[in-house]
């Protein structure tokens, strides 16, 4: 929590998308931290202990997103994790979602309303 708002950490290597996510989430009443890479994401996770994470599946390095999710789990993460997936990602990656303990997977382009609805539901639990 930050200033009475839920804190959301967004990890994506697409600066434009990150910027947009931040604006939409802030408009939706959340506090937002952004990270451009998996390493930065992990560091900020430890620093800020966010209430929810949004992670891009395919960043510069292949599997960076899924690896980050695994590392978060090892680091004792209890906050919900939403994954953004982009078309063209390999087929077999979709099968591991549930094992990764992910809370939702969104296909890009992400519909802002649907995202906000899901976030609200996840944080209400």
């Amino acid at each position: 929590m930050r200033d009475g708002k839920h804190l959301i950490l967004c990890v994506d290597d697409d600066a434009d998308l990150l910027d947009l996510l931040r604006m939409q989430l802030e408009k939706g009443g959340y506090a937002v931290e952004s990270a451009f890479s998996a390493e930065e994401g992990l560091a900020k996770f430890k620093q800020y202990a966010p209430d929810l994470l949004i992670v891009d599946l395919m960043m510069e390095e292949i599997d960076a997103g899924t690896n980050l999710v695994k590392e978060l789990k090892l680091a004792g993460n209890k906050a919900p994790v939403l994954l953004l997936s982009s078309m063209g990602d390999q087929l077999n990656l979709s099968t591991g979602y549930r094992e990764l303990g992910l809370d939702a997977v969104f296909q890009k382009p992400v519909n802002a309303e649907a995202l906000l609805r899901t976030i609200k539901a996840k944080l209400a639990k």
Partner: protein
Amino acid sequence: METRTGEGLILTHSLLLGERLYLFARLRFLAAGGILVGAFFAAYVVGIQGLDLFALSAAAVFLAAYNVGVFLAVRPFRAPGGEKPAEVRLFFIAHLSIGLDYLVLTYAIWLVGGGQSPFLAFYLLHAILAAVLLSRRAAFAHAATGYLLLTGLVLGEWSGVIPQHRPVGAVSGGGDFGFRVALTVLFVYGLLTAVTTALTTGIVKLLRGSERGLREASERLERLADIRRSFLHVVLHDVRSPVGTVVAMLEGLGNGIDGELTPAQKTRIARAEQRLGGLLDLLRGLRVLADLETEGLESMMAPVDLLATIRATVEDHVDAAEQRGQTLKVELPASLPTVHGIDRLLREALANYLTNAIKYTDQGGTVVVRARESGATVRIEVSDNGPGIAPDEIDHLFQEFARAGKSGSRRNRPTGIGLGLSIVRRIAEAHNGRAGVESQLGKGSTFFIELRLLAPSPAG
């Protein structure tokens, strides 16, 4: 006749014809030399009497002479992948040389005993040669020609029209089975056996060589296809990412994230989003096609919780239906058997049906998603009360690049090519199931996909 080598006479692989003709031309030189050496050997060493050495030598020289022509003509085509063979010319050479071979053979056999000659078995050798070189029909034609010549020879000798040559010692019959006859029989069949074996093994070697070549070529193609598949995935990802970001930015802009817009600006943005939406649909379709081509698709299949899949996919379409003032209903049983499949592709198939139903059904219409188990299949269906589809259009609907349109009201007709339903069909087929539609004009359509259940396992 012979030059009119239509399809019936053409071998499957003209490159091989060149190789074979070259092999046979080399053997033919051996045959000519063999006749010459054999004749003199028989006359002066074995002591066969009454051999017409001059006529036999003439036959050998004639054989060698036309073979020089054959040899020179087929030499450029002796290696596969060398010069591109002129098919018609090679076939002409094949027919001509086999025909001439039969003539020389018949003439030579006449000289060494005619109807009683042990050399008669060489007709079989020639039948084999023709069968290897030519099409089935042409080989039979040549065998018949050879047999006709043989018949003429035997009947001619019998009736006395053709004089008989019976070199003493070369021909059996007449009761006396002497040493020279035994030697001749051994020599002839020894030679025949050796030549037949050499010939057939030579042919088999050529065939195996070309088989290896084909296998290497197919492996090369396989590797290229792999590269193409990975390339497609990378390209799709790299195209989709910026387009997706732009769509999201436009959406934000349209929602007033950077301040209120005028109605005209909003309309412009909505249209831009619509156009990009079409592009995304196409990319999505291509991605599914690429997925369907994935090597070892079967091995990636896993148990799919259909109820969860259906609910999640319907959830994604609630907004779209709402925007068109439509009712999107779900009628699902309490439980469904687990099917074996690829969740993402099944979602894609259902999403396709839903998108279409929402697109083609008029404002305020109703779209219902149902699922039920029936026998060994699970049937998922999407019904609408839209315009329906004419019977003659149904047949083409699930083929590539088809789209229902005529019966829909014109202003509602979406743009873009219809990759959609063919993709659903392919997804169903990849899951060993089928996709289809039942429709009544003016009443609506029910699109369905039927997935086959696995044999019930003890676990569930």
